[in-house]
């Protein structure tokens, strides 16, 4: 059953890329995702993959090259972080708008400025509405597993949307941890061959990304929006099949000790594990606390989240990204939106945490649980948009 290994999150993604053996990888290095490109280009040099590796001169070019390669019918992948993702911005929309099933491993890092190389989610959260499916990963294992499943989701004929697989920069990307890898042949079989619906190099006349006039643009946007809605079912089907292969069963989110919980923290990526530890510690004292870890952020599992939190009394939604919107972070907005109109639903507050690599400790989550307790006891929600870990706040 699998191969017992110890790899960093970056090595895990590079390994998955090697096993998938994409037709084209176009990438430009940026900390902390550089290692993935580094490892993968070595696989190319060593002949371990047949991939055409395109060393481009910027992330804008990387995504442009990926769009070209994908339109030519190639299974295409790239990797980036932070400002690199920001430089891809324009093309992210082009990729999803042209319905090109590119996969992108995002190693989450704070956006400038001021410049910072450490982890938060401002990069991928900024790209949350670009028409890309987004999967988040607690650790190296989940980064690997999510990545292996990403092609199947992206390339499904009813979906045809690009997929981002996100993990936390340095915290998991550069940490060595145990991991169970699949054998190469099993990955190859699971991912399967790629049969694109068209190809610019098929010899048949094909136009990709033509000017979309008023009578058609809205219909194409509706197609993309529907594909995002419909992708939930496809994602669950792929997760299920992956579970049958590996024994690792994933859902749109993970409910950790939520069954009889009164208070819960909603969080994604590496801090979810830290929150689970805080949860266990409080559970040992008899406190009814739980963790809901989001895996699939786009499409957002609206009905499922609403159902999962309906029995709670108080919920804290954690955002490792501030929206500067004056109404809280992006995860919070979507969670609260999902719960609108619920009778007797929980009180919901937002915590911005861990920006720019600020270490997120077990104690931070204990503090959040205590504050939820306070809300329940006093019946007063108080400030909704909060920050944890900032000096003087």
């Amino acid at each position: 059953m699998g191969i017992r290994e110890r790899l960093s999150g970056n090595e895990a993604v590079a390994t998955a890329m090697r096993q998938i053996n994409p037709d084209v990888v176009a990438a430009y290095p940026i900390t902390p995702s550089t290692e993935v490109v580094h490892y993968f280009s070595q696989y190319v040099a060593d002949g371990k993959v047949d991939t055409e590796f395109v060393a481009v001169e910027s992330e804008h070019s990387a995504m442009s090259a990926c769009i070209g390669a994908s339109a030519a019918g190639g299974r295409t992948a790239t990797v980036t972080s932070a400002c690199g993702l920001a430089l891809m911005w324009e093309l992210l929309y082009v990729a999803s708008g042209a319905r090109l099933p590119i996969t992108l491993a995002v190693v989450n890092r704070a956006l400038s400025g001021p410049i910072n190389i450490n982890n938060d989610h401002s990069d991928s959260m900024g790209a949350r509405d670009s028409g890309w499916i987004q999967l988040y990963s607690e650790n190296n294992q989940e980064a690997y597993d999510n990545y292996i499943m990403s092609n199947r989701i992206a390339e499904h004929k009813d979906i045809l949307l690009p997929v981002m697989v996100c993990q936390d920069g340095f915290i998991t990307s550069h940490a060595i941890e145990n991991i169970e890898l699949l054998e190469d042949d099993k990955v190859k079989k699971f991912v399967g061959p790629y049969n694109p619906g068209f190809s610019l190099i098929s010899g048949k006349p094909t136009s990709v990304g033509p000017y979309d006039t008023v009578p058609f643009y809205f219909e194409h946007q509706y197609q993309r929006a529907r594909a995002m809605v419909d992708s939930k079912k496809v994602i669950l089907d792929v997760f299920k099949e992956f579970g049958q292969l590996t024994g690792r069963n994933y859902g749109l989110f993970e409910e950790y000790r939520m069954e009889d919980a009164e208070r819960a923290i909603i969080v994604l990526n590496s801090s979810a594990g830290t929150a689970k530890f805080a949860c266990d510690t409080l559970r040992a004292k008899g406190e009814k606390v739980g963790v809901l870890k989001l895996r699939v952020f786009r499409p957002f599992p609206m009905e499922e989240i609403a159902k999962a939190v309906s029995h709670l009394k108080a919920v804290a939604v954690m955002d490792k990204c501030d929206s500067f919107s004056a109404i809280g972070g992006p995860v919070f907005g979507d969670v609260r939106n999902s719960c609108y109109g619920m009778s007797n639903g929980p009180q919901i507050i937002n915590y911005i945490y861990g920006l720019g690599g600020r270490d997120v400790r077990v104690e931070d989550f204990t503090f959040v649980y205590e504050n939820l307790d306070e809300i329940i006891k006093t019946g007063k929600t108080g400030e909704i948009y909060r920050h944890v870990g900032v000096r003087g706040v």
Partner: protein
Amino acid sequence: MSNMVEIRWHGRGGQGAKTASLLLADAAFNMGKYVQGFPEYGPERMGAPITAFNRISDERSTVHSNIYEPDYVVVVDATLLTAVDTTGGLKKEGAIIINSNKSPEELVPLLDGYEGRVYTINASNIAEEELGNRNFPNTPMLGAVVKVSGIIPEEVFVKDMEESFHHKFSTKPHVIDGNMKALKRAMKEVKGL
């Protein structure tokens, strides 16, 4: 997780503290343990104080924060004792292991009243004699940590390291002997208080 051992490494950029933490993670992994080995990253620069961490346990640790209450602290460069709070949060039942030519008694005054065990090992000297470069103290430091902490049985560790050196230095076999000697000497020469 009662069986979890947490280790914090203090070094300076370029001395291999991060590499040592990854080597320790490797050795513990080969023993069947669950491991975490990770550095704290800033803009990397030679000579700047850096910190690296290990969690070693029988079950997967889900915590992804730095380590604030370590069982062991390893100081790869003794000049850090006056520059960084090396004993901060260090458990009394634990120990600090310092690369120094001094005795543990001589260094106690620099440890902010730390009441636990103090060990020294002249890792730079061993590195100079066995590897020809005193700037590579991480192999002897690793030997001292395993000896003091007992997280890996010594003979298993020595055997595993020999294999990993053979793998790592397959193109430079002359380096293998030096590293093995440095490792074994450190395990013998570490001095405790």
